[in-house]
């Protein structure tokens, strides 16, 4: 039963959406909307995100400035939308690179077991011994601020989660009949690992990637807040909150709107991740 339903689930994405119910659909539509707005930001926003003094500073929301203006007279709506480009990029790159590295190493360890697995296990133990954000902060502090260094730090820290997930899946899948059958057909290890094992073990890693996406955006915002992430004047939600924190009483819109942007994005991505993991649990559990 589990094998056959798994097959329904992974290659046919449309069936996933149907099986996910309303929460998956809302999540996908909401996230797609944010992504489209982010992509089109330069064309749909009426102001420039970085030019100073375009308008009077700290104006409350109005017809001309829906989200108000910040202390330097920049339009907050414009900056929130432009920041979405950066933050979605942080989430995407922060998931994809660790996912690829972690999945490859986890696959290798789970397929070969033995000493490659033992070595990987030790490294994973060491990295997971530190709290996520502390380790990212420490690495960025060492390398210096900036987006590239942030990606390096995220990759160094979060590949272990993917490695652990994929390794566990691969370990259980390598004993299944189709892997032995593949070996009996004279396929090499590389082909078996990537063409036969990998598609069968990736789904849980993708699901984890959804929650990791949110985590990365929050980490990016946190580092931005500390001045270790994206450097001003480039708009980024965390940086915007950090810059506006002094006006939180007198002009709360300066921090409320970028804060809402983080919450709304996290909400939609979490909806996708949650319903995806529900499907996986249903499929695996039966």
């Amino acid at each position, binding site marked *: 039963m589990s094998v056959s339903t798994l097959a329904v689930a992974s290659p046919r994405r449309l069936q996933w959406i149907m099986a996910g119910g309303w929460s998956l659909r809302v999540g996908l539509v909401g996230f797609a909307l944010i992504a489209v707005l982010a992509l089109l930001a330069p064309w749909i926003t009426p102001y420039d995100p970085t030019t100073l003094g375009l308008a009077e500073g700290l104006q409350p929301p109005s017809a001309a400035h829906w989200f108000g203006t910040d202390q330097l007279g920049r339009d907050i709506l414009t900056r929130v939308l432009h920041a979405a480009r950066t933050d979605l990029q942080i989430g995407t790159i922060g998931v994809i690179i660790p996912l690829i590295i972690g999945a490859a190493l986890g696959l290798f360890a789970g397929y070969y077991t033995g000493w490659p697995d033992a070595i990987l296990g030790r490294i994973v133990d060491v990295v997971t011994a530190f709290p996520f954000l502390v380790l990212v902060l420490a690495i960025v502090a060492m390398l210096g601020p900036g987006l590239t260094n942030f990606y390096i730090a995220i990759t160094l820290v979060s590949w272990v989660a993917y490695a652990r997930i994929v390794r566990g899946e691969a370990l259980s899948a390598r004993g299944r009949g189709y892997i032995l*059958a593949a070996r*009996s*057909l004279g*396929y090499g290890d590389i082909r078996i690992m990537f063409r036969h094992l990998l598609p069968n073990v990736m789904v849980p890693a993708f699901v984890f990637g959804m929650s990791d996406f949110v985590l990365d955006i929050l980490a990016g915002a946190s580092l931005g807040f500390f001045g270790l992430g994206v450097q001003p004047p480039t708009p980024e939600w965390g940086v915007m909150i950090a810059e506006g924190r002094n006006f939180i009483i007198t002009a709360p819109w300066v921090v409320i709107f970028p804060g809402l942007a983080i919450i709304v994005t996290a909400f939609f991505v979490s909806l996708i991740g949650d319903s995806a993991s529900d499907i996986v649990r249903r499929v695996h559990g039966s």
Partner: protein
Amino acid sequence: MARKEALEVDRLTVTFAREGRAVVRNVSFTIAPGEAFGLVGESGSGKSLTCRAILRLMPRGASIAGRIMYGGRDLLGLSDGEMQALRGSSIAMVFQDPLTALNPVLRVGDSIAQVIQAHGGLGRRAARTRAVEMMERVGIRDAGRRAAAYPHEFSGGMRQRIHIAMALAARPTLLLADEPTTALDVVVQAEILRLLDDLRRQDGMSLLLVSHDFRVVAGLCDRVGVMYAGELVEVGATQTVLRRPEHPYTIGLMNSLPEAVLGERLRAIPGSPPDPGLLPPGCAFAPRCELARDSCTAAPIAMAEAVRGHWARCIRRDQLDEMRRGLVMVGAAGA
């Protein structure tokens, strides 16, 4: 026509290093080009491991000794790369459970095409066409359309047909079939066995069929070997063995088939197979054998030829007449 090569298994021994026990002991048999050979025995008798040893696909911790000659080469002496090149292209294997033997995320047509591409050097398109032809050959209707389906969209019997199509896609000269019909219901079993037999004859392929069921082997195989506790206890032409078994265990095995003794209770063999670590020096079956004497377990017993080409490992063969009485000739499954 495929080139014809004989398989010669010589004193094959499989040992699990950690437990220090031999689960296959000194098994020797040959399969002539184009011949079908059956291995019969109960679970744990070592027949499946014998089969897997030929492809050198052993569970972790198992070591193989002896000689397995195929195509003039000792398979146990080949490098891993040479062995890998042989798998699927010269020697292929069909497994017991078609539910798990097919990769759930690959379309069946792609699974078959992959074998052809890996061994045949054909391009993607040509391999795909060949894959559909293979599906037609194993009796899948509307193969062109069904090639795009996933394994879960097929019934058990159809999956086994697809699995067979994969095994035969690169035109091997020897097919190892490990309980290929055990997971299927009786009607489908007969169809799959007939299919295997047809394909084997069309391609002039050799077949090693492993089964716990005498009826399955009787329908398909020219010769049969009976395994007990990791050892071959009887080898001979299928018809001869069925008509006049020369080992008490073979008789017991035939008696335990439901239709062997009409109108009587099933005659199960008393006791259970021995622990491979605690084998007596002589006949491993002696503790369960009604004819056993002290001499049976004193020293190793050699194979003795009863009739030409019919060998058995029993020193009390002259006492077997009483046991053979009441034995009903085993019919071939589905025949």
